[in-house]
């Protein structure tokens, strides 16, 4: 029948796309976005992280798959002239804070220990799901770090550092526990390229805003807010990502060209030797978006029996009709006569005295009374 022919034609056309369909090998996307700087003058680092958060959310990764760590609060900071906003362009064009942001780690919780625990998954059992990176071996993870850094280290909140070796070891732990399929690491700090020098696990691609010995520079100050709003590299990265949409075919080679030295002053670097696939065949949405791959099936599935209606409570007329009351909020008489309960057990009075008397008696019985003069 012509229906069958149409179906065959359809499959043939799709066959060329099927290869591409399954080429990336990932089924879910995660993002870990970290801003490591505290204090108002580091406004731009929070704006950097929120810009990437905004792009990643826009391209489809849901909040439950994003672990956002902001070391300080800029939006509701008392120095912010427009509360609940964080701007990325001067003249306050784009509010990257938005209306439905969910920050998972905030303030003092952003520490090296918590960051490494999130990556390796070794969190205490009572940690809620929103604070965990629940990735598996088919997850593509985007990790974005920004803050102040140096040759081989990144500063967390001006009080501790993470070194490039620690980061490389954390990624190796993730690889050994099969916590990622492919990982894209972007860092926007001074001398950022030093942070990816020591990586040795497979399937890692890294980008940095500056080479060793170079400083990453900030973009433009806003005179109303009084601080620099963004860093140059992330500013041009945001500009690039604003043009990407979920069906876009832009690939990693375009990302490597973002912010050349003429715009950024520093030289952005990248590292692809540990990555299996050719960067030209890796789509931007493989890491920044969450393009769901849908498999259409023609099998039927039997649904289970419908939800039972809630069981009605047995009539209150049968059981005791005791009227319940509210508690007195300040029962003065009861409080005055309340005796604080002794929870710690103390031995009864005189017990210690009696014990010492017994010891002395036994001593004198064995050794005789003549030793009494040795005591006094």
């Amino acid at each position, binding site marked *: 029948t012509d229906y069958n022919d149409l179906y065959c034609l359809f499959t043939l056309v799709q066959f060329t796309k099927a290869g591409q369909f399954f080429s990336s090998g990932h089924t879910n996307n995660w993002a870990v976005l970290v801003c490591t700087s505290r204090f108002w003058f580091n406004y731009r680092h929070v704006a950097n992280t929120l810009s990437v958060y905004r792009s990643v959310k826009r391209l489809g990764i849901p909040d439950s798959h994003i672990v956002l760590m902001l070391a300080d609060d800029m939006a509701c900071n008392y120095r912010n002239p427009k509360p609940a906003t964080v701007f990325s362009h001067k003249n306050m064009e784009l509010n990257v804070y938005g209306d439905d942001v969910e920050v998972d780690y905030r303030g003092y919780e952003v520490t090296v220990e918590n960051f490494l625990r999130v990556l390796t998954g070794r969190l205490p059992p*009572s940690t809620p799901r929103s604070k965990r990176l629940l990735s598996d071996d088919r997850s593509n993870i985007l990790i974005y770090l920004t803050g102040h850094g140096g040759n081989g280290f990144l500063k967390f909140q001006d009080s501790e550092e993470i070194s490039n070796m620690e980061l490389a070891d954390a990624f190796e732990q993730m690889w050994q526990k099969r916590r990622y399929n492919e990982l894209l690491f972007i860092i926007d700090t001074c001398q950022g390229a030093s942070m990816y020098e020591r990586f040795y696990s497979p399937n890692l691609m890294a980008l940095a805003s500056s080479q060793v010995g170079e400083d990453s520079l900030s973009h433009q100050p806003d005179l109303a807010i009084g601080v620099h709003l963004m860093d140059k590299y992330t500013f041009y990265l945001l500009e690039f990502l604003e043009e990407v949409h979920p069906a876009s075919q832009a690939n990693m080679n375009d990302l490597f060209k973002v912010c050349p030295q003429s715009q950024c002053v520093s030289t952005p670097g990248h590292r692809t030797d540990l990555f299996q696939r050719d960067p030209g065949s890796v789509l931007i949405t493989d890491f920044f978006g969450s393009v769901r791959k849908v498999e259409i099936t023609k099998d039927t599935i039997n649904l289970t029996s419908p939800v039972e209606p809630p069981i009605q409570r047995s009539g209150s007329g049968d059981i005791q009709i005791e009227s*319940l009351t509210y508690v007195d909020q300040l029962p*003065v008489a009861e409080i005055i006569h309340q005796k*604080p309960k002794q929870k710690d057990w103390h031995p009864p009075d005189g017990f210690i005295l009696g014990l010492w008397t017994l010891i002395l008696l036994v001593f004198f019985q064995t050794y005789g009374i003549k030793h009494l003069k040795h005591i006094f």
Partner: protein
Amino acid sequence: STYPSLIGQCWQAHPGSVCSKGSCGKNGTRDQFQEELVIRPLHSGDIYASFQFRTLWDIDFLQERQKVSHYRLFPKSLGQVLSKFSVRELHISFTQGFWRTMQWGQPFIPSPPGAELWVWFHDTVSDVDGNWKELTNVLSGIFCASLNFIDLTNTVQPSASFKPLGLGNATDHRFLRYATLPREIVCTENLTPWKKLLPCGSKAGLSVLLKSEKLFHSSFHSQAVHIRPVCQDEQCTSKAWELRQTLNVVFDLYTSSQGKKEWSLFKMFSRTLTEACPLATSSKIYVDITDNPELFELNPVTPLLSQAVVLGDRRTYSVFDLTRAETFGQLCSLNLLLRWKGDSDMLRPLLHAERYVAGFGLQTGEIHTVIYNNHPYRAFPVLLMDSVPWYLQLYIHTLTVTSKSRDNKPSYIHYQPAKDRHRPHLLEMLIQLPPHSMTEVTVQFERALLKWTEYTPDPNHGFYVGSSVVSALVPSMVAMNTNFTQDQPLFSSFVPVKEESSYFVRVYTEPLLVNLPTPDFSMPYNVICLTCTVVAVGYGSFYNLLTRTFQVDEPSLPLEKRLANLIRRIRGVPLLA
């Protein structure tokens, strides 16, 4: 039917239309939702808006052995928390700013700056501390707040304050836990999950007004969740669970209104109202017009009026019922306008408290708590609860309570001393305040030196001490309503009223910011640099002197002699000197 219908000229869903005919509330589904907004103009020109969203659910999480799986209006995340941790009552609030009682009066729902969490657990819980720890972690995930910093070093177990606000008779204080985080920041990331708990989200009804850019640009912002068991009906034979989400905000005259004493819903929230939440059985706005027409005028005028006795005062309110289509008028949107016409004096609040740190230097200090009783002739008792962190070592023998410059002995004192790094101080006192007086409670303390890992990344900011809580039964000038009715507005039915002559109020003082002796954290780096320099210069020179030998160095030959030497080497002849 659930389809919107053309009533007049506005498209509007039938109120409560999601329930089938006559099946909402007690007869059909077992949960109902009410929303309410109270707008109270303040005498300083500011305006106070209080949102309350209440879900009442006739179910028992704790008694029914089968798991509750069918959630409709009550949020599932909170329901699971209640059943897993056997919670009897849960009160959590997030506040930005401090409530100024002398300028604004008493709030409907008081809250201290930062985050506050107090929970009553059920009698059946065997490990209360373990449940508390896990509960704080789960709540920190739900509300995107750092509630995981609540641990045993800042949790207290009050012995007389914070009695349950819900039904019940057994009040063994072993099952109560209280903690505050005065440093907690409140921002959009806390408002977002709070809004998601509402049945209509932020899409319909009063919750569309909750825009973060306006709410956080205010003098005071407080959002809270209160869960407790209440009477299901007037006979009070069975329990129902009540979830109240409250949001109190005070908009400042100068930042939000540019100094003009004119307020409207659009100016406050940058939005107007177009419909009620379809899932709500009642959706009302109350505007406090007790001082009308002398003080201000209200537009549009509504014939519906209501009187309520709240906080010891009888106030008159204009009621706008959003479930009726005619409230929205011809333009299908409701924008209330209030314009001031003159100034007048405010009724002084009867109970008011302040707190500050006295002393100088970084070793000792003194905490002063001052409580004012402004009633002209009545004395009443207050319960003062103080929770001080362990690193401020209180000397309780220096505790003095004076009223009108005479010693005032409290009738009940409960003091639990702190244990370093384990437990904070807890001091609870029942003090009788004489009429028209100021009572001062002072206690001296010494500041501890922390271990260097215990300092925060910004230690020079200081360390916070949580607010003191003053709970009191204040004599009321007007008889309070002790009958419980379903039609009572939500703002007057929050605290249960037991007797007519007084009302219960809780006043929070300011949190304290105390500097501890902070070491210089650049010290290790400087010490290493200095030591290495001294060692290199001193020891290195000494070593060189002892071990260096001197050799005579021949000067290098000029170019001609070097060439001559080269030729001589080739010839095999001895070289020049």
